[in-house]
């Protein structure tokens, strides 16, 4: 009997100890995940059904009123149009340019590194600073852009209607012009982002097996186009999915340029009134937390949806043995 007792008493419990340590190590991260990521999502969800404002002691439940406003009021219609215009313009162009630049740079070998560095600079530079620089370049009279365009006056360029009008009536106001404003913002978004995509594509390109190109050559793939479709593009599948997703999420989060150019109002006639700016204006500046939360919830849904699609696509496409 004594032997049995000792046996039982001496039985170690490594698993419990390991488990407790593990929970201890992970505790700060878990706590912060809850407090900083999960709780705010719930808070946003809850508040989107209210008319809360900071400083009020209480609030009323307004049901789906905020969401109804989002889908009926013209301001929010402009918000959706501006946001989607931006995303639908910036993502394909910056992904396409990124891919193109990556292919060119990759084919040049070491000399290409200079271009890689140059194209990556906008990614590193504070967007706000560069946006202000662009704003100045786009100044209607003393900005470099219009000044350069004006140099084409009096030459054959005037055949093109854009130049003809510009030379006569003055070139566009760019940021002050309702028709151009959102496109300028898109341009700056592409300018800032395509270098990032290029670098991602470059790292994808370097992981393509070089022998595959040789096999393609032996199989009769003569042109660069053939090689691209047979070897490069399939190999870049997961990378492309990732680049597109990241670009979309970054595009949805555009804010710096809008707020820098038009601190009040989100562009001429709200043509650049993107969602993040709307959240800022309504929620923080105007203290309309209810509607700000509703926009936040919608925003979250878009972003989560995109990321989930990306994950599904990547999981299904793993076919490299």
């Amino acid at each position, binding site marked *: 009997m004594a032997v049995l007792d000792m046996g039982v008493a001496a039985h170690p419990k490594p698993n419990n100890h390991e488990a407790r340590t593990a929970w201890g190590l992970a505790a700060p991260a878990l706590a912060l995940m809850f407090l900083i990521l999960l709780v705010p999502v719930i808070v946003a969800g809850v508040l989107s059904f209210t008319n809360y404002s900071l400083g009020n002691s209480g609030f009323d439940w307004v049901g789906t009123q905020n969401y109804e406003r989002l889908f009926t009021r013209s301001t929010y219609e402009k918000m959706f149009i501006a946001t989607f215009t931006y995303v639908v313009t910036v993502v394909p162009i910056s992904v396409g340019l990124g891919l193109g630049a990556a292919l060119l740079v990759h084919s040049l070998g070491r000399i290409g590194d200079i271009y890689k560095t140059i194209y990556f600079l906008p990614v590193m530079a504070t967007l706000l600073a560069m946006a202000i620089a662009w704003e100045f370049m786009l100044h209607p009279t003393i900005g470099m852009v219009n000044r350069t365009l004006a140099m084409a006056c009096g030459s054959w360029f005037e055949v093109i209607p854009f130049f003809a009008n510009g030379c006569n009536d003055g070139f566009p106001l760019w940021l002050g012009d309702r028709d151009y404003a959102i496109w300028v913002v898109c341009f700056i978004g592409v300018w800032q982002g395509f270098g990032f995509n290029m670098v991602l594509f470059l790292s994808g390109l370097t992981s393509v097996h070089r*022998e595959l190109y*040789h*096999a393609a050559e032996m199989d*009769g793939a*003569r042109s660069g186009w053939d090689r691209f479709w047979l070897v490069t593009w399939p190999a870049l599948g997961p990378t492309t999915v990732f680049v597109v997703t990241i670009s979309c999420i970054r595009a949805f989060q555009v804010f710096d340029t809008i707020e820098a150019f038009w601190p009040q109002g989100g562009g001429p006639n709200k043509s650049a009134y993107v969602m993040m700016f709307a959240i800022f204006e309504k929620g923080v500046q105007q203290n309309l937390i209810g509607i700000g939360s509703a926009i936040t919830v919608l925003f979250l849904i878009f972003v989560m949806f995109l990321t989930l699609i990306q994950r599904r696509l990547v999981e299904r496409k793993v076919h490299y043995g």
Partner: protein
Amino acid sequence: MAGLEVTSLTKQFGETRVLKGVTLGIADGEFVSLVGPSGCGKSTLLRIIAGLETANSGTVTIGKAEVTDTRAADRNLSMVFQSYALYPHLTVAENIAVPLRMREMTSLQRLPVIGGVMPGARHQKHSIAQSVARAADMLEIGPLLGRKPGQLSGGQRQRVALGRALVRDPAAFLLDEPLSNLDAKLRVQTRTEIAELHRKLGATFVYVTHDQVEAMTMSDRIAVMMDGEILQCATPEIIYEDPDDIRVAEFIGSPKINILPIEQSGAELYLFGRPLKWREIGESTRAMQMGLRPEALRLMQSAPHFKGRVAHIENLGAEIFAQIALNDEGLRVTLRASPAERPMIELGAEVGLGFDAAAALIFDADGKRMRKIEIIAGLTPEVA
């Protein structure tokens, strides 16, 4: 099908001279192996033939046409890569079809959706599918046609690579160490299959390998390469029995040939200080070496040519290879013995050896074979 010829090819990578003037002619339908140690330039030579690399000087001819400046895609050759290089996103059937699609369909016909409605596309697709099925049957990979390379084993992938190569009718097949990624048993099996494939197709095969057994068993001729040069190109028998260079003798044959030093003093040749009976037809030189294959040595109890102690035994079942440390000069030689002789070659036992004079190969100090020297008889027996 056509013959191949390369003339005076040189190739340099920076400071390193990889090929130092290679000339080789391959007849139509011949199976030629390029064999040699790593870094000897055999893969580079193959790639120059393929067109994937360009030589610094020299020419490449396929059939009657000189193709030195033609790109690989236009040379009508097929290649099997060491890593197989299968397209990971295509099925086996699609992989095998690629050479046909590239060559026989126009780019319009190849477009993803619209291509299918282009004139003639249907017919092309059908004939391509038939060719693919034929190739698959020949290699017995019919059931795998719908799978992707990631789902196949190494041996299966190798067959798909072969299938992709032979689905067309190229002027020649180039194979770059296709068996080196397979395990030993599979390698032996596939060796036979490739040799039979060659017989069935009657095509020209150029086969690169570092494994001399593969070269010996599969080839019509072997080209032994070292340091960027072809040392000898001949049938396996001649390479084995009548090598031009000591390096060829040492590279081919397993276990390695035994090399013993010979001195010449006046008109006498001495091995371990004892005279040999020899005859010369032509000039003579100073230091020489004698090569004796393991099977040229035999146990000699009475009046042995030299004595030694058994240092190591390798029993392979059907034959035994024993390493004997000779009393003279501390050299070791490898002896091939039959299983019946096992009791005589215990580890550490003293044995007497003799050699077959007719099988002795004489090389000069630089390694060149001296065919004019002929050993007539073995050594005078050691004084007991």
